[in-house]
Each structure stands twice: as structure tokens, then as C-alpha cells.
């Protein structure tokens, strides 16, 4: 059922090894890096949005304090 006689046959790809593995390698690389980049971007974005949210609520509560004191 398996088409190949040996592992080295499989790697050689009948002389087309460079082209076949060059295609599969770059595809695998992109499909690994893309999710990592997207997840990293998500972490960074969430951290930034939370920072902004905290800064906003601080200024709001300071404003509340001032308004109450007056």
C-alpha cells in the first residue's frame, strides 16, 4: 500500500526532492508562523487595550473626585 521502498527513496522524490520539499517546507513554515504571529498580535493588542481602559477609568475617577470636592 505504501508507495515507497525506503525512506531515502521518499526523501529523494525520484530526483525532484529539492522542488517537492522546497514547496512543502515553505508551506509548513508559513502555516506555523502565521498562527504564532496572529496569537502574538492578539496578546499585544489585549494588553494595550487593557492599559488604555485602566488609564481611562483612572482619569474618570479623578474627575469624579474633583467634581465631588467642588
Amino acid at each position: 500500500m505504501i508507495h515507497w521502498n525506503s525512506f531515502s527513496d521518499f526523501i529523494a522524490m525520484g530526483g525532484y526532492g529539492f522542488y517537492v520539499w522546497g514547496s512543502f517546507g515553505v508551506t509548513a513554515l508559513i502555516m506555523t508562523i502565521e498562527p504564532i504571529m496572529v496569537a502574538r498580535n492578539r496578546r499585544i493588542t489585549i494588553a494595550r487595550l487593557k492599559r488604555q481602559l485602566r488609564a481611562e477609568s483612572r482619569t474618570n475617577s479623578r474627575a469624579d473626585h474633583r467634581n465631588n470636592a467642588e
Partner: protein
Amino acid sequence: MKDRFNLYRFASPATFYPLAGALIPYFVAVSVVFGLAGLWLGMLVAPTDFQQGEGYRIIFIHVPASWMSMFIYLVMAFWAAIGLAFNTRLSGMMAQALAPTGALMAFLSLWTGALWGKPMWGAWWVWDARLTSELILLFLYIGYMALTAAIDDQRRADKAGGLLLLVGVVNIPIIYFSVKWWNTLHQGSSVNLAKSSMATTMLWGMLLMAMCFWMYSIAIAFMRVRTIMLERERHTDWVRAELADKIPGGEK
């Protein structure tokens, strides 16, 4: 009647956000299963091609990547049309989330095509109708991303980008039919409903890989659109609640 399931509900970012988040693991799992099955059939079981030897095995990523590069563009154009017609918030976010993956698929299509063309035609690249129109598709993706990134006002960015997508959609039938309309070096379509030129294991390997790429694209677009939603809807109550729920530094 009040509790009837309403599909339009998911057009709102607040309801689509958790739905997409819940679906991502399933799309990833299905993509991995299809990918392993496709690689097993294509790389281990499928016989040697009588004309192209083992070099034809590039088809198992070349065709799925090319199909996805065209299909993702059509989906983006669909969202652009919805966005321009009904002024919906979600459509611009969807198009934005799909664009990088579409561009990568177009790049992979060209890259694997070059690595296939060199041993079979003796050239990495030729200015042939199929290849040139696919290169234009890559430029359309890059153009869309650059254009929307250059406009600060998000709604205007979506409108301008949407217009570009709709104008560029004319390129898709040109890519698809280029091997019929012009005399090209590129071989004709491998999958034909009437009679396929491929062995059954080759055909199934390719279809499984196409499903793998499709599910991958959905998963990664959902991941991306969720971040875009938080960013664009940051002043709404649901995003504030979502951000407040998160443990510092935690990812969910």
C-alpha cells in the same frame, strides 16, 4: 416566535465574537485531520505520475493554495459588497481578517508553482496568462491591505478597500479560465467533473488537502477577526466587560 433562532443575530460583533472563539478549536482539529489524511494519501500512497514522475506531488499544496487564494478573495468581495450596501460593521472586519491569509495563499501558489515550473518547463517564471493573473491577485491583496492601513478613519478605509475588492474581482474569472481562453504553458485543470485526468488516490489526496487549507483559513481568519473586533469595538460595553474578565497577561 420571539425565541426563534435568528441567524442575523451573529452579524453583531458582540454575539459573533464568542461564537468564533468557540468554533476555532474545531476548525483547527478538522484541518489537522484532513491534512494528515491528505498527506498520507498524497505523499505515501498515491502512485508516480507517468509524465511528471514524483515531481507532480507539489500539486497537493499548489492546487489547494491556488483555490484558496481565489476563494478567499471572493469571500472578501462578498463582504465588501455587503458592507457597501448595508453599512454593516462586521463586513469590514471580516475582509480585514481574511486579507493576510489570502495574500499568503497567493504567495504559496506562486512559490510552489515556480518550484514546479522549473523542473517541468525549465523556467521558474514565465509571463503566461495564468501566472500573471495570479501575480495580479497577490498585488490586489497587498494593495487592499496597504490602502486600508493608510486611511485612519476606519469606515472610510473599509469603503475604499471594499471598492478596490469589488473592482478587482474581475481578475478571478480571468485566473480561472485563463488556461481555456489563452494558449498557455500552464496545464489545464486537473479536476474535471466529466472525467478526471488523475488517479483516484491523487484526486482524494488533493481534495483532502484542499479541505485542510480551507479549514485552516477559517480558523486563522476567526482568530484574526476576534482581535480586530476588540480593537474596533473598544469603546463598547461588551469589549470592556471582555477585557475586564481577562486575567492579566492570560490568553483566552
